[in-house]
């Protein structure tokens, strides 16, 4: 008797609670205060230190709370002075940097030359396990604070010297004319003293010098950023703040946007691309980002690195119907690639449409001929390796293989080879276990043609996963880096790119766009070339 009565009571309570939430659920727009927008977010993989953040989710926050010496124009991608008053050099190797007066961190501390030098020394030091440490590799003394093996023999970079309250000098270990333009990357941000004195406290609630300050941070679920009213820069926030909400699944974020529970989703899930135009109309944006997808080859495997192999690689490239795949699978959120850089560089920055020539065009008959001339596919079958845990890699790899099979008239010419997790995929690449081409995606660190070539194709470079090596290419890159005239440097880089083309060191597939959708409350929403929303420009209401 007693049990049954309890049961009935509980059922009634559950029904009432459901009704209560029902009333509360509807009608709310954005679920946050006026002037504050909510935006989808992913849990950053690494602690939020500037020199330790190498993915877009952590990068989003750093872009809001930090300003460096330079800033990449959100529209053009050009590196413009931000905190730098001037950066002088006469030989492209020794730089004198003057920091603008009047800048402070949001805790009131002044931004000085020391704020930069301390931050860079921290980032470079092996002891601190910073994943972006290699960005400081051009600075003299890097090999002492961050040796390839063994323990470090110095605490600080020799090449950095504070010469005044607002001036410091940088000496590089080689000529690098593009160096000032790399300084907009987050790893080069200044850090307040509290970062060093109370590191755990700083990580719990990072303090920077950008247009926003962090009000609260619940790791793994939410971060509330508010406009910093005393921000001294010109790019003040045009809204009152941003609430970043962690979503495990992009589809849920999209559903939340549809229900008016979220204001901005900055990566439309592939499954929704078909509906997004209908759902959002002109509140959907799709703009080029500095990302190129390629297929890399295992040059450490002699089967792919003999004379004639370049014909096979070129043949495979010509067997891929890029336009069809970008139209049907990606719904035009990617564009067929015809060089090895990205449209966001602009023509002056080194992007050259069609540099690849007929090697990137779909010509099935010629493709078949070239593969035969080159001695056929090594082992008789191309196995394209990819990680199946994220993105829609399976769909497009299968489509690429289909295209190759059709062109070569052999339905066993190409198969996909999925790997369970990204870490395992990177492992197999690192241990040279792959015997066929593999998926390679490159998101630029800074909008320079150098960043699309040197890290990927220079002998022994950090992301040269296929271990391609070519003396002509290396020589041209060295020459371009030493060039003081920007236009000439870009031209020389393009010469180097042609070496990549002639050897088909990697097959360019497509340029990736950034996509976003937003609610009716927002206006003036845009993505920068890094496919991160330009939060400070967004207007609410």
């Amino acid at each position, binding site marked *: *008797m007693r049990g049954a009565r309890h*049961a*009935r009571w*509980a*059922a009634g309570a*559950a029904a009432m*609670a*459901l009704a*209560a*939430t*029902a009333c*509360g*659920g509807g*009608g*709310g727009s954005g*679920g946050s205060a006026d002037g504050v927008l909510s935006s989808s977010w992913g*849990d950053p*993989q*690494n*602690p939020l230190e500037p020199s330790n953040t*190498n*993915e877009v989710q952590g990068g989003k926050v750093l872009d809001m709370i930090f300003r460096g010496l330079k800033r990449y124009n959100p529209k053009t991608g050009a590196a413009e002075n931000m905190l730098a008053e001037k950066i002088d050099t006469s030989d492209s190797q020794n730089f004198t940097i003057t920091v603008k007066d009047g800048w402070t961190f949001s805790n009131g501390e002044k931004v000085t030359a020391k704020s930069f030098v301390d931050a860079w020394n921290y980032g470079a030091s*092996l*002891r601190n*396990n910073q*994943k972006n*440490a*290699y960005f400081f590799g051009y600075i003299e003394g890097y090999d002492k604070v961050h040796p*390839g*093996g063994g323990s470090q023999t110095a605490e600080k970079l020799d090449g950095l010297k504070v010469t005044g309250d607002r001036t410091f000098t940088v000496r590089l270990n080689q000529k690098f004319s593009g160096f000032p333009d790399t300084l907009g990357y987050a790893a080069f941000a200044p850090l307040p003293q509290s970062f060093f004195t109370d590191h755990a406290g700083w990580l719990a609630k990072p303090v920077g010098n950008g247009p926003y300050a962090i009000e609260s941070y*619940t*790791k*793994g*679920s939410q971060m509330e950023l508010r406009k910093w009213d005393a921000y001294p820069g010109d790019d003040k926030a045009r809204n009152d703040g941003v609430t970043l909400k962690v*979503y*495990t*699944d992009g589809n*849920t974020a999209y*559903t*939340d946007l*549809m*229900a008016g*529970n*979220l204001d901005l989703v900055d990566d439309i899930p592939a499954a929704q691309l078909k509906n997004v135009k209908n759902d959002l109309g002109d509140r959907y944006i799709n703009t080029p980002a500095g990302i190129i997808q390629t297929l890399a080859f295992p040059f450490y495997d002699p089967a792919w690195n003999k004379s004639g192999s370049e014909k096979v690689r070129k043949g495979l490239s010509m067997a891929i119907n890029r336009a069809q795949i970008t139209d049907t699978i990606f719904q035009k959120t990617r564009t067929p690639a015809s060089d090895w850089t990205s449209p966001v560089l602009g023509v002056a920055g080194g992007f050259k449409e069609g540099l690849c020539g007929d090697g990137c065009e779909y010509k099935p008959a010629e493709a078949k001929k070239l593969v035969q001339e080159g001695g056929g596919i090594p082992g008789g079958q191309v196995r394209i390796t990819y990680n199946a*845990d*994220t993105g829609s890699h399976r769909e497009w790899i299968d489509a690429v293989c289909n295209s190759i099979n059709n062109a070569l008239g052999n339905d066993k010419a190409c198969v996909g080879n999925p790997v*369970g*997790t990204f*870490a*395992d995929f*990177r*492992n197999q690449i*690192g241990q040279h276990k792959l015997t066929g081409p593999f998926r*390679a*995606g*490159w*998101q630029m660190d800074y909008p320079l043609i150098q960043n699309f070539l040197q*890290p990927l194709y220079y002998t022994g470079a*950090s992301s040269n*996963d296929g271990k391609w090596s070519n003396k002509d290419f290396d020589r041209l890159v060295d020459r371009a880096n030493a060039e003081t005239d920007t236009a000439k440097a870009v031209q020389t880089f393009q010469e180097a790119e042609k070496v990549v083309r002639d050897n088909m060191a990697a097959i360019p597939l497509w340029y990736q766009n950034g996509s976003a959708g937003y609610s009716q409350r927002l206006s003036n929403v845009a993505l920068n070339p890094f496919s991160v929303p330009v939060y400070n420009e967004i207007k609410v209401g």
Partner: protein
Amino acid sequence: MGRYVVRRLLQMIPVFVGATLLIFLMVNVMGDPIAGLCGERACDPATAAQLKREFGLDKPLWQQYLTYMGDVFTGDFGTAFNGQPVTELMATAFPVTIRLTIVAILFEIVVGITLGVVTGLRRGRPIDTTVLVGTLVVISVPVFVTGLVLQILLGVEWQWIQPSVSPDAPFGELIVPGLVLASVSLAYVTRLTRTSIAENKRSDYVRTAIAKGLPRHRVITRHLLRNSLIPVVTFIGTDIGALMGGAIVTERIFNIHGVGYQLYQGILRQNTQTVVGFVTVLVLVFLVANLLVDLLYAVLDPRIRYA
């Protein structure tokens, strides 16, 4: 009774060690997790080596396991790759999942048993057939379909609820996710109760109770239901562990930052410490829930005695 509990608790030790060892080995088979930390590039060897040293990944596996177990007994579950101690992750994730599980279990008990009793007593009537068909539908539709459909219907089309759960995850917001999580088990509970009730309805003690002239509701609750609940309690007890661990799909659909979310992320990032830590706690929950179920038998059926 006391000795029985102690014996059961002692039995948990080998199960606990075996389970953690298995999970530890399985996560390690996936390979070196450091490689996934540096994006689309190779980690520079010096940093990678140092990270491996700090996480103890450079040691042989048996040594890693022993160190890990040693730490666990002092309450240190290690550190996730984002620098947070795993205990901190647990402190945020478990309360949320426990709330979700409570909602789900309540649905199972209240709705499941009520429907079971109703249908068991009215076997063959239209209500019985309707509920049976209903449970069949629920069992055959995968949870993620139920979840997504309810989310779109209630959240977007009718705007009754918010499609995602806020970080605090109060009980009110967990009702629909809890219902989704409980749906399949709920159907099983209904069917179990129904069969059990229908079978015991004809037994001698029920007939005796009716013959004594007891009121109908007293016969049902005191005599019939109490005896029919034993298989149901077993099911619900084991289901507690299954619900907590199996919430990955539901938590993902409704963006609930609980155990399922941490496990999913831990597996994707091959974070041994997170995965082993969370699964270890889940194993403990499972063992304790089972013990409680066995003790409950004695309460429900006085003939069962533990010595």
